[in-house]
């Protein structure tokens, strides 16, 4: 083909390619099997440990604490769909989905809240971790059971007391 006529070859290419535009949303979207979309948190599994919060790069996951509760909040508006949280969750409570259509006219759709009860300390009425997390820890290493119902401060105190007792043979001066 001469140099002059070369550009006309595009007609051949175009007719071979045909129509490539997807008739989305009437057709299936072009998604690969490995696509990362939004995440879902199974509130029955989550123990409120905060590992996902520490890993999440843009702070889409947050732990909010008040007197009796710990709330894990997921705000999809900040999520970058990296699935780091899926990697790090120790109990597999987070799953990645292939969902990507997230537009809504109700802002509450963009939030997910997982509410946890805080464990109350037997001694001082102060609070420690979530109840579920305590159960989880006990399951993993049953030794701590003795102090389980105490907050970290009281736990420390009990420990020191017991050491002191041991040194003085249980007799305090």
């Amino acid at each position, binding site marked *: 083909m001469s140099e002059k006529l*070369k550009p006309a*070859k*595009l007609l051949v290419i*175009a007719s071979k390619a045909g129509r490539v535009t997807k008739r989305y949303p009437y057709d299936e979207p072009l998604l690969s099997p490995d696509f990362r979309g939004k995440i879902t948190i199974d509130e029955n599994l989550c123990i409120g440990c905060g590992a996902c919060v520490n*890993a*999440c790069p843009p702070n889409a996951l*947050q732990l909010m604490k008040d007197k009796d509760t710990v709330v894990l909040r997921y705000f999809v508006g900040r999520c970058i769909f990296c699935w780091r949280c899926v990697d790090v969750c120790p109990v597999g409570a987070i799953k990645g989905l292939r969902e990507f259509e997230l537009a809504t006219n109700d802002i509450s759709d963009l939030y997910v809240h997982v509410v946890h009860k805080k464990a109350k300390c037997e001694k001082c009425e102060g609070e420690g971790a979530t109840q579920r997390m305590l159960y989880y820890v006990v399951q993993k290493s049953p030794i701590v059971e003795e102090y389980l119902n105490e907050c970290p401060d009281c736990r420390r105190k009990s420990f020191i007391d017991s050491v002191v007792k041991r040194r003085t043979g249980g007799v305090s001066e």
Partner: protein
Amino acid sequence: MSESSLILKKYMDLANVFNASVTVDGDTIHILAKPEYLPKIADKLFNEFKCVHRTCVATDERPLNGFFSLTHLFTDDSHGFYISLKTYLDGENPKAPSIISVVPAADWCEMEARDLVGVEFEGRESYRLVLPPGWPADAHPLRKDFQYDKRPNILPVGEKVSTNEEASTIPVGPYHPALHEPEYFELYVEGERIVDVKYRGFHVHRGIEKLGESRMTYQQVNFLAERICGICGFEHSTCYALAVEKAAKLDVPERAQYIRSIILEIERLHSHLLWLGVAFHLVGYDAGFMHMWRIREKIMYLSEYLTGSRKTYGINLVGGVRKDINEEKKSKVLETLSTLEKEFKEIVEVAVSVPQVKRRLTGTGVLPKEDAVKLAVEGPVARASGIDRDARRDLPYAAYKHVSFKVPVYTEGDNLARALVRIDEVFESISMIRQLLDQIPKGPIRLEEFEIPPGRIGVQVVEAPRGGDVHFVITGEGKPYRWRVRAPTYNNIPALRVMLRDQPMADAPLTIASIDPCFSCTDRVVVIGKDGVIKKLSLTGGVML
């Protein structure tokens, strides 16, 4: 004596002359000199040893040792060495001699150091580059005593469009007509001819370095680094990860390095196809644009298939990658590549031979070699002006030492040469991915446990589609103490002045686009409302709605 010890001796001798100390750490030569010798040493490095000036970094080291520091980063590309030329500056009143009279390429990075860290440069004219004009003169956001979430009171000031008496002023911007990115050029024209150019950028400086140094962990910064650029994000996250790994001396599994290289080349493919499409669009050849982007879509699908996302792949971590490539994926990649290669060949052959396209590209936007060397331009812009340089070959990282490839070099320095460099590179990338997939070793894809000791330095250059990205890291406690980023467009924009001068006005958009500019990855601070209203965004409490 072996060749590399001869080279090292050359640098040692140079340092001795100026009473500077030298330490060699892997591929990096650290030279620590007194401030007054900086220009002389830099002169030797740049003009005699032909090292490339990549960027400079100012660091507030006062919490560590009471001083500021300034580091000029050079690379000796013909011998594969990094050279860091460091000096300590007074902690009260940091002053350094400017090196731009001997290294013109250092112009912008010196002014950035002045804006962000407050280092004054002697022996040159100073101007504000990065910070907005209304920002107080004594607020330097990259100093350690400046809180990352602090917003100083800004005086709302407007910037005057400069008007030139002799020539008419034509503003191009605040958005590029075709690239949809913030930039602002003032073209001074006489008749149809451009006589001079002014550039004002940094409208979208996002404070990424400060954010990475203040409230992110080593692993989180990977994802932030990936967002520096919407097109060559993976290069940035790889560059960051490699810099940290180099600083901490981590031995990353080979398989991870292969996967990184494969994804890097896939990114180059999509970027070059995108650019070719845009270039055709800019010269009015929309059919070429559509077909280029049609075949580019295959690459986008492929990246999603391999990483989970079309862009911002999110698979890099310090210590390795998060996603493996199995046999099934391997064959799918090879299959896509062979169709792509065929279709791409067909389309470029047609598109480049369209007489109008050819004429618009040939002889326009010429960048002569000496200017290219002086300004230390990067990537295809350098290679189209006869500079034979490619970090993948000269400073091998990831798995590039295991593949063979050609580095296309053209000498014309015009828009056509820049297009041809990219076209040739597409074929090279395809062949590289094939070789990498063929040789990929078995094994783990990331290190499970490692430590990053504080106070170590890592410098890395990664060849992005538009040139070398430079990341410099000083490690800290759990996060980088100093993280400096330089994108290739940072060095390419100053060259536009040369390329646009004495050219017809009509070629300006194409010439500007021919460096494949990425304004957002060059800009890195905070946008301030023009009315001076400072919106409070609570970063710890999430977005307030």
